[in-house]
C-alpha cells in the first residue's frame, strides 16, 4: 500500500510541482492550500507524512499551528516543514514543536524525496529487528543508518533527519575534519555557514542532555568539525575552549 503524503502549501505552482514529483515516486498525494481544508481532511484521516508550509495566505503561523494540532493527534506522524522562512527562530520553533525536519525551499526535489524516503524508512524500521550490519558503533555512540536513529550511551538522541545526517557524516570517519561544505553535501541541505554552526550547536545540546560534558564534536576553527571518539576526548579537551 502506497504511503499517503499531505502537502499544505499556499503556492499552487510549488504545491503541484511537489505533488507531481511525489506522485511519480508512487506516493498518494493530497494537497491543501490552506489550514482549514487541511484540518478538515486530517480530522477524517491522518496521512502517513505531512509537508507543511509555515505561512499560509494571510495566516502567518498557520503551519506551526497545524504542526501542533497534528502532533497532538499523533506523536509518530512524520512532519516536514518546507518553507521559504530560513531564519533561526523559525527553524528552532518548528523543530521544537515536533517537526521531524525543517527544510527550506532551496532544497531540490531529489533531496526532498530522499528525505521523505528516509523518514518513511525510519518509521518502517522502528518495528523491524535491528540488523547488525546497519549499525555503526563509535564507543558510546550507536548509529542505525537503517532506522536513522542514534543512541548515545544507550539513550536515543532525538535528532532531525538533517541532524542525523550531520552526525552520521562526522561519526562515519572519526578524527577527520568535515568542513561545512562537506557537511552540507552529506546532510543534503543547502544553507549558509551559520546555519551549519547552529545545527551543530543544537546537536551538541541534544547530546549534552544525555551526557552533560559531551564534547565529541570538535570545532576545528576555520575548517569545520570532526568527531572525536570518546577515548580521544581527553587529548582534544584543550581545543574545545
Amino acid at each position, binding site marked *: 500500500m502506497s504511503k499517503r503524503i499531505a502537502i499544505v502549501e499556499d*503556492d499552487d*505552482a*510549488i504545491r503541484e*510541482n*511537489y505533488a*507531481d*514529483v511525489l506522485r*511519480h515516486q508512487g506516493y498518494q498525494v493530497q494537497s491543501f492550500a490552506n489550514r482549514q481544508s487541511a484540518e478538515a481532511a486530517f480530522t477524517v484521516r491522518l496521512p502517513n507524512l505531512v509537508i507543511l508550509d509555515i505561512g499560509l495566505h494571510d495566516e502567518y503561523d498557520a503551519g506551526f499551528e497545524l504542526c501542533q494540532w497534528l502532533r497532538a493527534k499523533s506523536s509518530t506522524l512524520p512532519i516536514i516543514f518546507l518553507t*521559504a*522562512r*530560513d*531564519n*533561526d*527562530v523559525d527553524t528552532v520553533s518548528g523543530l521544537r514543536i515536533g517537526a521531524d525536519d525543517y527544510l*527550506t*525551499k*532551496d532544497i*531540490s*526535489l*531529489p533531496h526532498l524525496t530522499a528525505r521523505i524516503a528516509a523518514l518513511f524508512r525510519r518509521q518502517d524500521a522502528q518495528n523491524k529487528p535491528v540488523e547488525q550490519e546497519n549499525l555503526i558503533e563509535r564507543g558510546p555512540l550507536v548509529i542505525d543508518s537503517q532506522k536513522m536513529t542514534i543512541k548515545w550511551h544507550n539513550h536515543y538522541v532525538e535528532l532531525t533527519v538533517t541532524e542525523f545526517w550531520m552526525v552520521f557524516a562526522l561519526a562515519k570517519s572519526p578524527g577527520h*575534519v568535515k*568542513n561545512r*561544505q562537506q557537511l552540507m553535501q552529506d546532510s543534503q541541505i*543547502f*544553507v*549558509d*555557514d*551559520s*546555519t551549519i*554552526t*547552529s545545527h551543530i550547536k543544537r546537536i551538541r545540546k541534544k547530546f549534552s542532555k544525555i551526557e552533560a560534558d559531551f564534547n565529541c564534536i570538535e*570545532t*576545528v*576553527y*576555520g*575548517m569545520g568539525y570532526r568527531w572525536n571518539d570518546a577515548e580521544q576526548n581527553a587529548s582534544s579537551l584543550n*581545543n574545545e*575552549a
Partner: protein
Amino acid sequence: MTLPSRADTISANKGFIRIGLRTKLVILSSFLFTIPWFGYQYVWEMEKYLRYGQEQTIVGTARALATTLHDRPNLFDNQASFLASVEKGKDLYGFQIRQPIQLDGRYNDWPDFEGKAHFYQDSNIIWQEPNQAVSLRFNAAVGKYDKYLYLFFNVVDDKLVFRGNNARSIYLNDHLTLSLTAPDGEHQQYIVSNKNQGWIESFQLDNQTGRPQPINYIQGVWQSNNTGYNVELRLPLDYVGNKIGFSFADVDTPSTKATSLVGSANTSDPEQLGTILVPSPEIERIVKGMSYTQSSIWVIDKHQRVLASAGDINSASGVWRSTTSTDASEGIWPTWWHWLQTHVLHPLYYQVLTKPTQDFYDQLYDESHLAGEHIEQALSGEVHSQWRLSTDKQAVILSAAYPIYIDEQVQGAVIVEETTNGIKTLRNKALEQLFTSILAILLVGTISFFFFASRISNRIRQLRNHAEVAIDEHGRVKEDLPALKGNDEIGDLSRSFSTAVSRLTQYNQYLENLSSRLSHELRTPIAVVRTSIENLSMYPIPENAKAYIERAESGVHRLNHIITSMTEATRVEQLLQRTEKQTFNAYEVIASCISGFKQIHPETRFNFQAPNQKANVLGSPEHLAQMLEKIVTNAVEFSSDSQVGIMLITVKKNLILTVKNNGELLPDTMENRLFNSMVSLREESNSLIKNNQQTPATSQPSSNSQPHLGLGLFIARLICEYHQGQISAQNCFDPNGVQINIEIPLTE
C-alpha cells in the same frame, strides 16, 4: 563629552577664526556700552542748560542788587565816586581788613601789606629845601577795620630826629601831618610828632589859630628801625570824611626846620587833598541782605574800587547748592550699598569726573581796583557775564556785572560771582546715579545676555553632539536623537532632527531588512522555477533542449546562492544577538584557524606572528573564526605574492589583530565604506563576474561562478562589533598592500 566635531575640523581647515554664538552675542551686547556715553552726553547737555540758567540767575541777582542801588546818590555821596578820575597815591582806598590789627609798628598783621601799600618817593615830594637831597621815602597802606581807619607808614629815613624833650614846637623834628575833611566837610589837620619811639603823640591843629592841641583819638605806635621808622595808627571813621592827605616832614638836624615834605598831597591845602574811599557801610548793609544767595557780591564805583562786598567766593556755589548738599537718599539705602558707593563706585567714577573743590584759590581782584572785561562792560552800561577759571584753575567762576545808574550815569556796578560747584555737584550726582544704573543695567544685561547665549549655544552644541553621535561614519543610525524640550526654534529644530533621524532609522531598517525580505519573497518563485525545471527533467526531453534545462538550472542555482548570501548577514546578526558570550583564548582560535587556512589555501603562505599566546576575549569563538575566515579569504584573494601576514598583539587591554596582504591599494574613498553591506571592490575594480571568469568567492573560493555581494567584510564587521571591537582598513606602502586592523578588548 565633546567629540571633535565636524564643524570644528571644517573651520580649522578653512583657517578662519571661529567665533562662537556666545562671542557674537557678547560683541553685539557691547553696543550697550554706548548707553553710558549717551547718558554722559545728556548730562553734559543738562549741565550746559544749568549753566545757562545759573548765568541768568546770577545776572538776575546782579540786576536786583543794582536796582536797589539805582538813583541813590547819597550812598555814593561821601565817596570819591563822582571824580572824573582817581590818582594813584593821592586818592586812597581803605581796604577792608578782616582781622584786628595790633598797633605795634609792625606790618606783619596787615594782609598783603607789600602789595597793597603805595610807595611814596621823589614824585611825591611836596616841597624841599633847595639844593637839599630828599632822603625820605615811605610806604603807606590804608585799611579799615571795624570803626577805625588804619594807616601804616613804613618810612625810610637816614636820620630819625625825635622832638626834643622840652621842645614846644612840634615841627622841628620828623613828623607826620594828616590832613582830612571831617564828615561835615570841615578841614582838619593832625600832627604826629613823637619825643621818642612808642605810643604816638598826636595833635590837632586848630583851624583858626593853628595851634596844636593834643588829642587822644588818634592812636598808634611810632617804631624806629634800622632803615628809618614805622608809624602805625588808627583814627575813628567818624572823623573821616571823603578826603585825606598825609605827608612826612624830614628833619635831619635836631631842632631845625624840615628840609623836605613828602606825602600824598599838600596837607595844608584842603583843596589838594586826595579822596579816601572806605567801603561804604550803607551799601554793605544792603549787600549783606543779598549775601544769602550763595553768591559772592561786589559793589564797585566807577573807578572799579570796591564799595562793598559780601560773601565768599569759595563757598559761593550758587542756588543749586542747597538742593544738592543734602543727601536725601542716604537713609533709604543699606550700609553695604553706601560702602560700595564710597569705596568702589565713587573712586571709579571720579577717574572720569572732577570733584568740585571749595579749597580753590582765587585772587584775581585787587580790592582797590577790580578789573575784567565784564566790569568794563558793566561800567560802560552793558550787562555782561563771563566764565573764568579761578587763579589756581581749580574752579570755574561765573561772574556777572550789572551797572548802577545814578542820574542816567553809570556810577558803579554790581558784580555777582558764583562758582559752578553747585552745578558740578549736581551734575556729578546725576552722573553717579546714571553710571550706577547703567552699570547695573550693563551688568545684568551682559550677564543675562551671556547666559542666554550660553544656553542657546549649549543647546545647539547638545543638538550637534546628538546629531553627530546619532549617525556613525558608515551612515548607520546608531541612536535616536532625543527631542529637546523648549518651545522655540531650537526646540523645533531638534524635533525636526529627531523626526528626520527616526524616519531615517525606519528607512535604514527597511533597507537592512530589504535583503532578507527580498530573499524570502524570491525564494518561493525560485522554488517554483526550480521544481518546475526538475519536474521537466523527469520527462523525456529532446537532446538539444537539455542544454537549456541545464542553463536554467545553473541560473536558478546562482539565484539561490545570491539569496542565501543576502540573508547571511541578517542571519549572522540574528545569531549573534542570541549567542551567549563566553571567554575564550583568541590566540588558540586564531592559531587553529590559520592551520585550517593552510590546508584550504595551500598555495598561500601565512606568516603568523603572535608574541603573546594568551589573549582572552569575551565572545563567540565560532564567530571569531568566521570573521577571520572572511578577512583572510579576502586577503588571499587580493594578495599579489601569495603571502598573507597575520599578526596578533595585545596592547594595554586590547587585542590587535592585523591581516595584511600585498597587492592593490584601496581607493581613498573606500577605506570607510569597505565594511558596509553590499560593497564590493571586485565589482568595481574588474568585471570578472560579468565575464564569468575566475573570481574567488567569499564562502566558496573554489567556485567560479559565485557572485559577490560584498557581504564578507560586512559580516566581519558585525562580528567585530559583537565583540565590542573595531575594524578598519588601511593602505600599506612599500610594498603596496592593504591591512585590516581589528581591535577587540581583552577580558581578565
